């Protein structure tokens, strides 16, 4: 029974850490306390426009996975606690609603579900856009701030930007009361806007930067330490935390891992790999887990591809490389085959001299693996042998790949042919 319980709390620890990593609220929790973060700035901006009943528009920018949406969610969560009755939230995503029709429809749908109105699927886009303007007016009269969150903001800037124009134009009137928050990974997102839209958009921007080394370390500590309370056996939790502390204090290692990935999300993904690799026998995180996770996340796909090739496929790659060096204007299977034959003839290698159709199949395998690709998109009229192709490997990659290939199998002649 004792061992069962031990197993249990180790699994429990693993589960806790895993669910922490998949829970953005938990990850960004420490931000709330410090004053100079984007969190507090954003919260101030939005809450002031709620209390002062004015219109506002903000753009959140930063690389993918830097926690823009998550921080905003935390802010919204707080605001809902502070002003439960005077906020109404509408979320749009550029990936889903970048065309105006579905955007207006989605706005109408969300408003309808919030206010228990009947949403008509058949309503026209015009009806929906008028509905939105009317709704903004009503909300303004009721002193309710409508917060529009436009995720993937840059995608809304495609096309005629009717949504953005209508939204921002409606906000110009005194009666309305709305906040538009755009989230984008593109730093030039505001430059994509049309003039009429840009002039209506306030130029407030918040930049989310990748965490500094200190921040990242703090984040790691925050995620990896177990709570010292009744949920885990005291000794286990203390020892676990000590081990984590030791890992975090090792500057060299931290440099290696934390420098590699810039954004919070990537860091979390790396941590997830490490934690899932944790040994349940001991129940502690170790260096080895971090190392394994590092090699899991950091991959060299091209090298993997070369390693998966057969000898014949390597021959074809080398032939293509040689054709590249010769600067032939056009390269297709026939010219590769000619080169292959000339190599076979000049070196009298009997073992790797294969017939044309065998080579063609190997060639097709390479195309499937995307080590080579067709340079024409639409020439379906030609059969594979005639379609021009190009190599998707740099000479250095191919060279490294050949060197790393199992030396017992790889004919040494291939490396020589590369030079």
């Amino acid at each position: 029974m004792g061992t069962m319980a031990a197993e249990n709390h180790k699994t429990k620890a693993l589960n806790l850490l895993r669910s922490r990593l998949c829970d953005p609220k938990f990850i960004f929790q420490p931000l709330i306390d410090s004053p100079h973060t984007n969190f507090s700035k954003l919260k101030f901006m939005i809450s002031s426009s709620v209390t002062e009943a004015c219109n506002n528009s903000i753009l959140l920018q930063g690389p993918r996975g830097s926690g823009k949406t998550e921080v905003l969610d935390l802010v919204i969560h707080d605001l809902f606690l502070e002003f439960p009755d005077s906020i109404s939230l509408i979320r749009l995503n550029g990936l889903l609603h970048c065309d105006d029709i579905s955007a207006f429809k989605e706005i109408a749908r969300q408003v309808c579900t919030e206010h228990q109105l009947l949403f008509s699927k058949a309503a026209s886009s015009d009806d929906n856009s008028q509905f939105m303007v009317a709704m903004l007016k009503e909300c303004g009269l009721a002193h309710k701030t409508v917060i529009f969150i436009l995720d993937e903001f840059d995608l809304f800037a495609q096309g005629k930007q009717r949504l953005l124009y209508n939204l921002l134009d409606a906000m110009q009137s005194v009666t309305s009361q709305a906040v538009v928050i755009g989230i984008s990974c593109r730093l030039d997102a505001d430059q994509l806007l049309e003039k009429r839209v840009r002039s209506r958009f306030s130029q407030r921007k918040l930049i989310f930067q990748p965490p500094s080394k200190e921040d990242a370390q703090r984040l790691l500590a925050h995620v990896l330490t177990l709570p010292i309370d009744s949920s885990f056996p005291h000794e286990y939790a203390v020892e676990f935390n000590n081990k984590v502390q030791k890992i975090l204090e090792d500057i060299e290692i931290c440099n290696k891992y934390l420098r590699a990935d810039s954004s919070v999300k990537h860091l979390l993904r790396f941590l997830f790999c490490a934690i899932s690799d944790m040994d349940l026998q001991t129940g502690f995180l170790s260096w080895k887990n971090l190392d394994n996770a590092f090699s899991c996340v950091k991959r060299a796909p091209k090298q993997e591809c070369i390693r998966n090739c057969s000898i014949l496929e390597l021959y074809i790659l080398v032939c293509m490389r040689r054709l590249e060096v010769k600067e032939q204007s056009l390269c297709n299977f026939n010219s590769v085959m000619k080169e292959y034959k000339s190599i076979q003839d000049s070196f009298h290698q009997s073992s790797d001299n294969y017939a044309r159709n065998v080579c063609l199949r190997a060639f097709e395998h390479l195309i499937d693996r995307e080590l080579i690709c067709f340079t024409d998109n639409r020439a379906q009229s030609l059969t594979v042998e005639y379609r021009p192709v190009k190599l998707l490997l740099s000479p250095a990659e191919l060279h490294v790949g050949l060197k790393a290939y199992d030396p017992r199998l790889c004919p040494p002649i291939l490396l020589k042919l590369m030079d």
Partner: protein
Amino acid sequence: MEAPQEDSHTPSNPIVFPPEADDFKEVTYLQQLKYMDKDETPQIPRRSTRYSASTSNNVPEAKVNSSEPPTVDDLLVGGGPISLDDLISSFPGRSSQILHIVRLLGPLNSPTPPLFIYGDASTGKTSIILQLFRHLNRPVVYSSCRTCYNHRILFESILNQLLLHPKNASNGYSNAKRCERPSDFVNCLREALTTVINNLKEKSEKLISNTMTQGGIGNMIYLIFDNFQLVREWDKSSTILPLLFNLYDMLKMPEVSLVFISSTSPDTFYSNNMSYVEPIPVHFPAYTEDEIRQILLRNQPNPKLYSSFLDVALRPFCRITRQVDGLSTAFKPLYEKYCEPLKNKGDVPSEKTKRSLFIHIKPHITSSLNDIFKVSSLTSVESDACKEAKWKGSQNNKLERFEEIGELDFHMSTSAKYLLISAFLASRNPATLDASLFDSKGGSDNRKRKRKASQKALEHKESFEEELLMKGPGTFPLERLLAIFQCIVSVAEEPSDEEEQRDDGLGVPGGNDGLMNNVLLQLSTLCNANFIFKGKSCPIEGSTRYRSTISEDLALKVARSLKFPLSKYLYRR
């Protein structure tokens, strides 16, 4: 649609790999597993296996089950429980990948970020993932981007499964929801997932109250996207790909996890106007020679004999390809040949017989190396295996078919054959030489020109060949094709009065209307069969241009069947 052969399966050893296993039932089972997507509704194999699993306990209940409305249990991969050890032993050389994925998926009810499984064709990605979920006994929604060939079908297939809506005759094979737009899809998906997860939670609470902590299926649900690399070629790939990659972040449901299975590495998905947080990559490397040996040895009736066969054959073939499906097809006839001198295939070979067998097979290996993958006449089991190999070969079946047809005696009307030959000639010969090649003497000029070959002509010849090699067959207008067709038909039909009649026909186009009509019909048939490619109409000339896509070998074969002297008309310098 129910597969009765499923019933005979004992749950302990139903995984079959490789596909060439002698037992036909097992082959079909594998195909159902691997290409579950071939059937529009993946529920079918599941349900039938559930049926078979329950028959062992009590029959009447099973019958009730089959008429009951579908439950969340239908989202489990069927086939009964399987232990991790069985799983690892049934996939030789994949233990590290299996354990890695098990660790990433974690214990019951533990959230997982999206996974990206990638590796070459026939490295066991799909089979392992499905079997792994069978081992874990957790609900999955499996959809392959091969059968769901556009985003709408994919969306609807996922929703059908989540809403437990099997397509069948009773509902007229309709979908549960119609959804075309990504926004509708995400809304419906969220709704459906919430209900399913609530169901799962209720269920596991019941289990806990019954103090049955073992055997629960948990609260997590996994969406599996197979053949994910194909999404890149879809019409709306630029919006669908980022949507699917960002789906996990968009849903914000920790109970949902995504598994992408692709045959190309994650870096092939990069494009300049798309960004996403990369899923956790898991690589399935190609099998090594030893692993291929282990795989091929599975399910062999006489492993000792087969092993001695592999000693001889495996290494040279591995230099050509390391794909198990291709190798297993190539080895099948070769092994039969290897066994030929033996009286009893069940015998364990002695050193002496091994040596004599080696001498026997040696010449065959060298020859069969060069026609590896050549498809000969097909038996039913073999054809399945071949189909599978071709399934992977994606777009290039055009060529394969030609090779295959060249071997076979295929049926085609005489006029179609002439048309094919004339198309081939029109593609190969320069248009300027038509007059001299097809005049009344019938290409006797050819020889004269050859005699006068000068240095310049030789150079010319080289450049011509080069061009032919690079550019492929040339294009030609319809008029030229018909003119050549008439010429060669008239040459072939020896009687001289016939020839005069042809000349009349040429002079007066209305003369043989019936023949021309027929020919146009034949031409469109050949175009549909991809023997002749019909291009879009040229904006300058305004006429449609054609191109013959057949190889010289095939053209010669066709000509031989007509006893037509093709080489006489083929322009070579």
